[in-house]
């Protein structure tokens, strides 16, 4: 058995992906169903000279990774449901201060304690709007063990490239299932590091827009002294209440992601070319949907699957284009209706959009999706 191949759990693959991407600091707090990420990081980080910390709570874990990231280190934290709620304030801090970090949220039932061991996809809106105020968001929703590895690598790349927090959100099924994974060789996947300053310490400003919408970030301890605050700030990093600066800075923070959607947004189209019915799904439910689409094709129904891989920014343009071709859209999801609203927003009435919603701890099986395809056809 080659050591490049393993039968691995999604959460384990996520941790190995982080190490591959160059993550050298993890801080977390035990919570089901994400704990295996922490367990693997606790084992692997010392081996590569990194540091693992189990903090006193979820809030501290989020804070510690931001602190570590400011020293130029790639950082990860992992959590689920209630922990994701607790981290929101400091996620907002990472947004406004533009500090790269990756947050894994393995989705379980909620709200509150909900169903700790049950799968869910009900945190997708929280990933967009969970912290207060306007802020950009990048959220990736992998559907297989291999993809949880590669999307974690991509999450680090996006975080470092765009100076922003990135969330990776497998549902519990993807986080806990095991599949064969082939570990990429070093160099096989692209690994991006953040851009450091090209000017000397005397001239450096942490939000210097002369260098574009994603200003270079210096590291604490590297000879550059600068100030970082959660207050609205000017390009020198110091607090400001000057209206035109606050407005411009907030707009730039959104713009740096909006202008990069072609680089960020990923998706998979399956049998959509001639489809009359499109299923829009993600995570483990996209796998049910693929099964159902194949069933439909066998039954002579032209169905196809649009699988969301990058949930935020939402693949608006692609779904808009899709809605011009199909007669109906179905969104099965393990929540009581979230993606369906986003899809309707993009479809703008060009086709009826219906949802299949389930929150009882069981996945939406292919049967329910197949039945819906037959019904809307």
């Amino acid at each position, binding site marked *: *058995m080659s050591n490049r*191949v*393993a*039968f691995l759990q999604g959460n384990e693959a996520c941790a190995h992906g982080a190490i591959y991407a160059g993550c050298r600091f993890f801080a977390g707090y035990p919570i089901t169903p994400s704990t295996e990420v922490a367990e693997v990081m606790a084992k692997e980080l010392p081996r590569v000279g990194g540091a693992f910390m189990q903090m006193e709570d979820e809030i501290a874990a989020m804070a510690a990774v931001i602190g570590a990231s400011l020293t130029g280190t790639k950082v990860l934290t992992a959590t689920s449901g209630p922990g994701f709620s607790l981290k929101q304030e400091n996620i907002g801090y990472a947004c406004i201060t533009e500090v790269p970090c990756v947050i894994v949220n393995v989705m379980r039932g909620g709200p509150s304690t909900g169903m*700790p*061991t049950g799968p869910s996809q009900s945190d997708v809106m929280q990933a967009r709007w969970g912290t207060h105020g306007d802020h950009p968001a990048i959220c990736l929703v992998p559907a297989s063990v291999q993809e949880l590895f590669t999307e974690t690598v991509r999450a680090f790349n996006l975080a470092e490239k765009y100076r922003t927090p990135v969330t990776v959100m497998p549902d519990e*099924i993807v986080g*806990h*299932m*095991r*599949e*064969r994974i082939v570990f990429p060789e070093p160099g096989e996947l692209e690994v991006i590091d953040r851009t450091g300053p090209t000017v000397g310490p005397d001239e450096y400003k942490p939000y210097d827009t002369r260098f574009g919408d994603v200003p270079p970030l210096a590291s604490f301890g590297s000879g550059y002294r600068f100030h970082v605050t959660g207050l609205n700030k000017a390009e020198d990093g110091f607090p400001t209440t000057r209206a035109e600066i606050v407005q411009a800075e907030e707009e730039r923070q959104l713009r740096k992601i909006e202008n990069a959607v072609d680089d960020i947004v990923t998706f998979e189209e399956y049998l959509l070319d001639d489809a009359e019915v499109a299923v829009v799904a993600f995570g*483990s439910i996209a*796998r*049910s949907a*693929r*099964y159902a689409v*194949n*069933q439909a094709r*066998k039954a002579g129904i032209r169905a196809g699957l649009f699988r969301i891989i990058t949930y935020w920014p939402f693949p608006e343009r692609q779904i808009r284009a899709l809605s011009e071709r199909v007669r109906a859209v179905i969104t099965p999801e393990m929540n009581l209706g979230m993606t369906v609203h986003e899809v309707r927003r993009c479809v703008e009435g060009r086709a009826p959009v219906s949802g299949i919603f389930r929150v009882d701890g069981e*996945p939406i*099986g*292919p*049967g329910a999706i197949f039945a819906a395809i037959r019904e809307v056809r």
Partner: protein
Amino acid sequence: MSAGRYEIRFSGAGGQGLILAGIIMGEAASIYDGKQAVQSQSYGPEARGGASKSEVIISDEPIDFPKAAAVDALLALTQEACDKYSRDLKEGGILLVDSDLVKKPPKGKFTLVRFPIINTAKNEVGRTIVANIVALGAMVALTGIVSRESAEKAVLSRVPEAFTDLNRKAFRAGYDKALQARDK
């Protein structure tokens, strides 16, 4: 697609090692036999007790839906698990139960195989803790979905060296007893 898709479910109580049995089955198929496999599980809050299940889907093609929908082979080590998890057993499937613990197996159009699995581990192999490996050996024999050699390799790669003989013995005991029980 369902063609070539084979679904196995290991069920019993938490702490019986059934998740590991499922992992080894998946590993045997995907790493040693070169097939596709997905293993998943569901469990309650208890680390011990409660009803627990571990599922393995094996196929020659990529597997989409990762959970069992129509079970080809089911193992039940407790009556509670048997009652809870036998409903979606396929017509023509296989049901293996511990004959001491599952006194009322369901009726249906499937092959029922019964033998004292835990008792075999305890009294013939020598340790109750390897009951999951006895059960795994039995499921490998009854399903024929992975090769005996691959399954044995997968078992031995998962256990500490000091327990190699014990686990090999457990696997073989399960394998042989299941075939005897079926052909009886």
